[in-house]
């Protein structure tokens, strides 16, 4: 008996139901997360997740064992793309920061962070190399470690610096150095040139470090070297995997 359903629009007669292949577990196991356990801090990096951006990086920072204290940041770089209007001899840089989930950071502070980050990266990106163009960096904070009312922005800012450096490397944009940031108590310092130069200093809350800025910088440098090692190791490994 041939019963045809006349009430619905059916597909072509030779249509077959959609069957998904089983995910092969071996593929996932091929890329273990980069774990480096120092002071119970671990970092997971994955580049190139955003397909329509020129470069992107996904950064997961965990402090301790609990998943509460976790920062997840997705940075994407668009550019260098041609900018219209007046001629400019070098690229213009813009940084936008957005919280994807619940917005906990006041918008004024977000602007301050963007200003701070674009100041760091105008010193780091070889902007003269890209005349008449614009480089746009978008940061999406997917998971915010802030749980209490008092905003603790320092780990987020450090993650932003590291994330942008990775995304720029992924986009193939010329940078003078792999810049990375280190935190110590309530201070963030972004370094270049193997820790001899400071490209950004952020101290927003008074802590017991008093006025001895040199020792603060020294303590941040240790954290910087650690972060930079993680970044470079990842970049080398992903390059080898490509070949």
């Amino acid at each position, binding site marked *: 008996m041939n019963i045809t359903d006349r009430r619905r629009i059916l597909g072509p007669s030779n249509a077959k139901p959609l069957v998904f292949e089983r995910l092969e577990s071996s593929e996932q196991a091929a890329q273990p997360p980069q774990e480096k356990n120092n002071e119970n801090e671990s970092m997971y990096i994955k580049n190139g997740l955003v397909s329509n951006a020129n470069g992107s990086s996904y950064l997961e920072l965990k402090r301790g064992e609990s998943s509460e204290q976790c920062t997840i940041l997705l940075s994407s770089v668009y550019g260098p793309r041609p900018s219209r209007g007046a001629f400019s001899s070098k690229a213009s840089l813009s940084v936008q920061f957005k919280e994807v989930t619940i917005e906990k950071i006041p918008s004024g502070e977000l602007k301050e962070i963007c200003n701070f980050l674009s100041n760091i990266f*105008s010193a780091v990106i070889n902007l003269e190399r890209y005349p008449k163009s614009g480089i746009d960096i978008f940061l999406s904070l997917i998971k915010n470690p802030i749980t209490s009312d008092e905003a603790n922005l320092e780990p987020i800012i450090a993650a932003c610096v590291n994330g942008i450096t990775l995304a720029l490397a992924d986009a193939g944009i010329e940078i003078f150095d792999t810049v990375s940031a280190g935190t110590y108590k309530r201070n963030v310092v972004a370094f270049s040139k193997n820790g001899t*130069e400071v490209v950004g*200093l952020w101290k927003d809350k008074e802590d017991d470090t008093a006025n001895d800025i040199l020792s603060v910088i020294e303590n941040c440098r240790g954290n910087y070297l650690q972060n930079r090692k993680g970044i470079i190791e990842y970049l080398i490994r992903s390059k080898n995997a490509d070949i």
Partner: protein
Amino acid sequence: MVLSVTEKSYLHESLASVPPARPDGRKADQFRPIEVFTDFLPASNGSSKVVASDGTECLVSVKCKVVDHAVEEDLVVVDVDIAGHRDDSGFVQGIASTLSKVLSTQLDRSCLRLTKKYSFKLYIDVLVLSSFSHPLTLISFAVYSALNSTQLPKLISSDDDLDVAELPTFHDYDFVKLNVSVPLLFTLAICGKNVLVDPASNESDVANNGILVTWNNGKATAPIRTLGLNEDYVSGVSPQSLQDSIKMIEQVAPEVLQALGGI
């Protein structure tokens, strides 16, 4: 004034030389001369106008309102308007956010306390009429002199109003001076190894980096951070320069406070 590439390069060289040769002949730790006028707006509780020698002009007005401090958390609201810049630009919003954070966290709330239930809430409106260099130092001077010239209405009712539901009543014409320690914010430019206080616009254009240092209660406090003064010459600085800039503020800030206090 827009400088050519050659002029900028010459200026940068002279600012980075030892000792620095500043175009207006100042020493590294010397401020530009400023004129300060206070208490001239009849409709506000405190006001000030600061004019720098390059024509940068900044007006600050302080107004107050009586609020229930159990309901309103923020007792200081800062609004910044800079002529020639959009209100939603990162530059204006960044300055406004920095100022309101510094003032709301570092001003002593007990100075604004009126009774056990009510407090004064201060509205600080900043208007920069014309700015050529980074206006933060000037705004901070103006806020300082405005808050120090602020007169608040004098309370004549009882200051214990927890049990009696009574609104505070004020004297018809007597005022009480607001006595509060106000933080100062300084911008410095780093050129090569030199640290220059209160950079003018042409100096900001060629600075390697800028530093913001806050001064409150006799010491340099947070926020201390790097600040973008331009996009062409910005580069990394040595940690020693950061320490030098804090040291320089520790030297000059007491003199600045003395000068501003004499008004």
